[in-house]
Every structure is written in structure tokens, then in C-alpha cells.
């Protein structure tokens, strides 16, 4: 009896210890329990459309095409960023300051197309905070590669998308995406990074060699409808903190992400249909061969 009791006590303490360690592993102190993070997001009014080529908004299916406002600016929100300065970076690394009132601001019409970066920075005592967001803008063709903008040091502590999603691509749930953590332009390894979504998911990873950190974006859309355009994007943000000498640094990278089209695309059926094509091709080719033999005879 005593042995059973002892065994139960042991199991209970092991379970409690595991639970405690588990809790630490899943939500380490430092990252999860920070004050509200400064981040750049889209005002919710823009949700519901679908972003093609990173920026152009289309109406719902069946709607008439909207007049395209080429080079039109975009509305953004700076959350928890009172007192921060905001810069708008062009693909050629030129930048300008943007006025922010009440957290809401518009990014100006760009001179050229392609990805631009919005960078917010703030210093409060020994804490330096930064928030970065990349937006695809329309304009005259730019000959600059977005890799230059992504890799450029725009703020001291930064999460670089490696790469930013290209045309015909966007951040999508269930896909693996790479990021590089940089401090003063140099890759930083061994630092925890957290990915959170506007739909409540929370994932953590630690930057590895060359500052690389990978995330599979969670498939957390509560309600999925058929077709990309019927599913508005949600917001994700990556957050990391780091201390160097006597300064604490925090950085956020935010972006829109989309439903995994695998919800309405079947690979199994695709293979089956291609298989039917193979059979049909074999049949037609076979007829050809027997015809030929027939003629020869």
C-alpha cells in the first residue's frame, strides 16, 4: 500500500515538474509576458479583399472591377507606438519620415513599384523598440531587387524576411517561411523569436546558425470558405527581444497571411486526373502503333 502511495506521489511530482517545465518551454517568460508590442498593422477596414501581387485589392467574387488607383498610398496603423517616428523606405533604400496622428497614417504614393518598408522606432529609457512591415506598392517599374531592401539595416535590431513573398506567392498558412534575425546588420543566433497571429496562435522558435529562424504559419482561420478571394487575410507578427550592453531591444515584423488553398485544392484528385490523361495518352499512342502495323501489313 505504502509503495503504491509512494509511487503515486512520485508520479504526481514528476507530472507537476513536467507541467512546469512544459509551461516554461511553451511560453518562456521573456517573450510572452512583455508589455503590448509596437507593431504596424492594416486597419481592419481593408480586410476582406484579396491581395494579388502583394498589394492590389480586388472586390469579392462577382463584383465589377474597381477603378485601379495606380500608385495610390495605403492606410496603416501603428499599434502601441505612441511617440515613435515612422520612416517609409523605397526599394533604392531612400527613405522619408511620415507623420503619424493617433496611430493611423497613410504611406505616400511611391515613385516606383515593388516592396517598400515602413519602419517605426522609439526609445524609452534603456528600451529601443522597432516595428517593420513590407508593403507591395504600385508605380513605375523599379529595377531594384527587394532582397536589397530586406537585407538593408533599417533599424538596429530587425527580423528580415528571407525572402519576402514574391508575385504569385504570399504568406500562407501551413507553409514554412524563413526569417533572419539581425543585430546592427549582423545575423544573431540563439535568440528566441515568437510568431503570433491575430487569430490567437502563438509559436516560438530560436534563431539558429546565421540568425535563421523558420516558422510554419499556423492554419488557424476559424472559418474557411471555398476560394482565396472569399477568405480575408489575417495578421501575423514576429517578435524578438535582445539585450546588448545596457540597452534592451525589441523588434516586430508584421504581415498579412492567407488561408492555405489546400482546403479547396486536392492533390489526390490532381494525380488521379493526370493518371487518366496518361491512360488516354497511352491509348491514343497505342492506336497509333496498331494502325501503323496494320498499314505495314
Amino acid at each position, binding site marked *: 500500500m505504502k509503495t503504491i502511495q509512494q509511487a503515486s506521489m512520485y508520479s504526481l511530482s514528476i507530472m507537476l515538474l513536467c507541467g512546469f517545465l512544459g509551461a516554461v518551454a511553451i511560453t518562456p517568460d521573456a517573450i510572452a509576458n512583455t508589455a503590448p508590442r509596437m507593431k504596424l498593422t492594416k486597419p481592419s477596414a481593408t480586410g476582406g479583399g484579396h491581395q494579388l501581387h502583394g498589394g492590389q485589392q480586388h472586390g469579392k467574387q462577382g463584383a465589377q*472591377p474597381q*477603378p485601379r488607383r495606380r500608385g495610390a498610398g495605403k492606410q496603416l496603423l501603428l499599434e502601441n507606438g505612441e511617440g515613435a517616428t515612422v520612416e517609409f523606405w523605397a526599394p533604392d533604400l531612400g527613405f522619408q519620415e511620415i507623420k503619424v496622428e493617433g496611430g493611423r497614417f497613410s504611406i505616400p504614393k511611391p515613385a516606383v513599384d515593388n516592396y517598400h518598408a515602413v519602419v517605426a522606432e522609439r526609445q524609452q529609457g534603456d528600451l529601443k523598440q522597432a516595428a517593420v512591415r513590407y508593403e507591395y506598392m504600385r508605380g513605375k517599374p523599379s529595377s531594384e531587387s527587394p532582397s536589397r531592401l530586406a537585407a538593408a539595416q533599417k533599424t538596429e535590431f530587425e527580423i528580415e524576411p528571407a525572402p519576402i513573398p514574391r*508575385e504569385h506567392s504570399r504568406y500562407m498558412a501551413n507553409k514554412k517561411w524563413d526569417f533572419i534575425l539581425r543585430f546592427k546588420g549582423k545575423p544573431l543566433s540563439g535568440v528566441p523569436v515568437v510568431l503570433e497571429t491575430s487569430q490567437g496562435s502563438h509559436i516560438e522558435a530560436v534563431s539558429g546558425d546565421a540568425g535563421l529562424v523558420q516558422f510554419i504559419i499556423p492554419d488557424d482561420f476559424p472559418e474557411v470558405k*471555398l476560394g482565396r478571394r*472569399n477568405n480575408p487575410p489575417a495578421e501575423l507578427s514576429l517578435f524578438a527581444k535582445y539585450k546588448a550592453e545596457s540597452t534592451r531591444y525589441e523588434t516586430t515584423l508584421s504581415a498579412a497571411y492567407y488561408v492555405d488553398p489546400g482546403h479547396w485544392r486536392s492533390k489526390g484528385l*490532381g494525380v488521379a486526373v*493526370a493518371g487518366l490523361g496518361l491512360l488516354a*495518352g*497511352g491509348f491514343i*499512342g497505342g492506336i497509333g502503333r496498331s494502325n501503323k502495323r496494320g498499314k505495314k501489313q
Partner: protein
Amino acid sequence: MNLSAIRKLVQIAAFGFMVYGSGLIGYYTVDKFSNALPALSCAFNHNTGDYCTLIPFQHQMAHRVGETIANEGNLLQGLIPTLITLGTFLILFVILSKAFCGWICPLGTFQELLSMIGQKLGLQQRKSVDEKVVKRIRPVKWLVLFFLVFFLPILTGLGYASHDLVDPYCKICPSRILTTLANGNTDQLVVDQANPVTMGFSIFGDFLFGLMIALALTVRQPFCRICPMLAMNATFRKLGLLKLTKNASSRCEKCGLCAKACPMDIREIHTEMVKKDVTFEDCTLCGRCVEFCPDKNVLQLKYATIPIFSASSDYFKKRKKAQKAWEKVTLASLKQPTVQPEAKS
């Protein structure tokens, strides 16, 4: 080394660059070589070295031309991106002409590889497709180009067709499936059940992909015959510096080896007795007809009027011998036990 062997090497290098080239030149659109390539190198493959010109055309028809007309905007302004794409395409096309098909296109290379596999597996090859069938199939590429690359995207821009028809040709293009699969990405070989339009197009695209693979094992270049890029290239064929030319001889009438060698079954190369420029609409400038022409200088590949490869009887003899030796090597022939000299006696 014969012309076909040189061509194979160029095709392999081009396939590597077109399908995996982003590591060399970069991942983003502006990093790509031209974004208006006269061959089916696919934009859906993120590792591509360059894009085919059909994708910008489709998007521009929908978003620039169609929407400009719908919004009563300035059509000339709406056409500017298309003119830029066309200009880039033409610069490339002038340099290499229809050789983009015969030497560069990854889908063309893949079909040739399948044909080679079919031959090595011992599947009976169709030397030539029936003349009537060839003639019946020829207009299809023009219809695909007109309806799927230009007309439907414009209708979409005008608001008369589903938004899923912005790039209808891409939805059925075998290069999209091939080049993504070649990178281990299975996202394009799917049935898209979002709506009836995507479902219909994806089923057709998958079926066409399977059909092309099976046919290519026994028929030469089955997809090329209906490819809209072939039609696009045919439209501008007079502008290319590289040309196939013919100085017809009286022996041509009885010969016809050139037409038999042609993977696109262009019998007119044989029958044409007057025209000098025989770069016909289906020609891919692969040069096989020149290799298999036994008569000196009758067929020539010329670059800006300078002959760069000409038919000759010596070359023909060597080439024919090499071809026979190559065709003899099949899986079955490799399996056959070697006959020992003693056994013979």
C-alpha cells in the same frame, strides 16, 4: 560532336537555368533575366531563372487593357506595359528567333527526353504524324493564343468573365506543373474545387499534363503542336536573325528525308521548291532537317544571312550512322545476353 549533341547540351544547361536558376540570379521578379522569354519557363516556379512572356501578357490584358476600357481610361496608357513586354520579347526573339523552342524551352526539352525514354524502353515510335492530323491540329495553337492568352483575360478585365480567368492559359499550361514538380513542389498538380471555373480548368490542365507525358513517349513533341508560344513566335518569325533556308535541288522531290527528320512533321520543308526562307510557322529551328539533308547546301541555318550550319553529304552519312547506333541501344538490347564467339561456331 554533331549538332544534335550540341543542342542537347544547350538544352540541359537552359533547363537548369530556367528551372533552378533563381539561386544564380535571384528570387524576385526584377532579378529575372527578362520576364518576357519566348519559351515556356514558368513564373509559378519560384526557382525559375526567367519567366515566359505569356504570363505578363495575360495579366496586362486583364488588368491594364480590359480594366482601362471598362473604366473608360486612356487606352494608350493602358497598353504601355504590354508594349514594354512585347519590346523585350522582340529583342530576345530577334537574337535567337524560334530557336527558343528548339534549344531553350524546358517543356520542349522535357518532351524530347520523354521521346528518348520511350525509344529506349522499346515503345514503338511514330516516325511521323499523319499529314491530315498535322493540318487539323495546326490551327489549335492560334486559337489557344487568341482565346486563352488575349481574349478571356480582356473579358475578365471588362468584368464579363470570372476573375479566375485572369490567366486562363497558365491554368492549363503543362510547364506550370512540370517545373514546380521538378522543384519538389506538388502544389500545382491539384484539382481546385473553389468554383466550377477553377475546377474545370484544373481538371483540364492535369489531364493535359498526363496526356502529354504518355503521348511524348511515342509521338514527337505532342504539346508543342498546340502551344500558344509557338504561335506567338510564328507571328514574328520574319524578324528573327536565325533562319532556316533552302536552295531546292531537283533531287529534293524524290528525297524527303528532311521532313521525316522534322520533329514537328513539317512536310513543307520537303515540298517547298520556290521559297528561300523555310522557317515555317511550326519550325522550332532545331536543325534536324539540315542534319539529315544529304545534298550539299540545300538546307542551311543562317544567322543574319551568314550560313552557320549547312547540309552536306559527309555530315549526313556520319549523322545517319550515329543515329542508327543510338536507336539500336534499347533496354531490351541491353538485357540480351552477349553471344560468345565459340557459341557462334
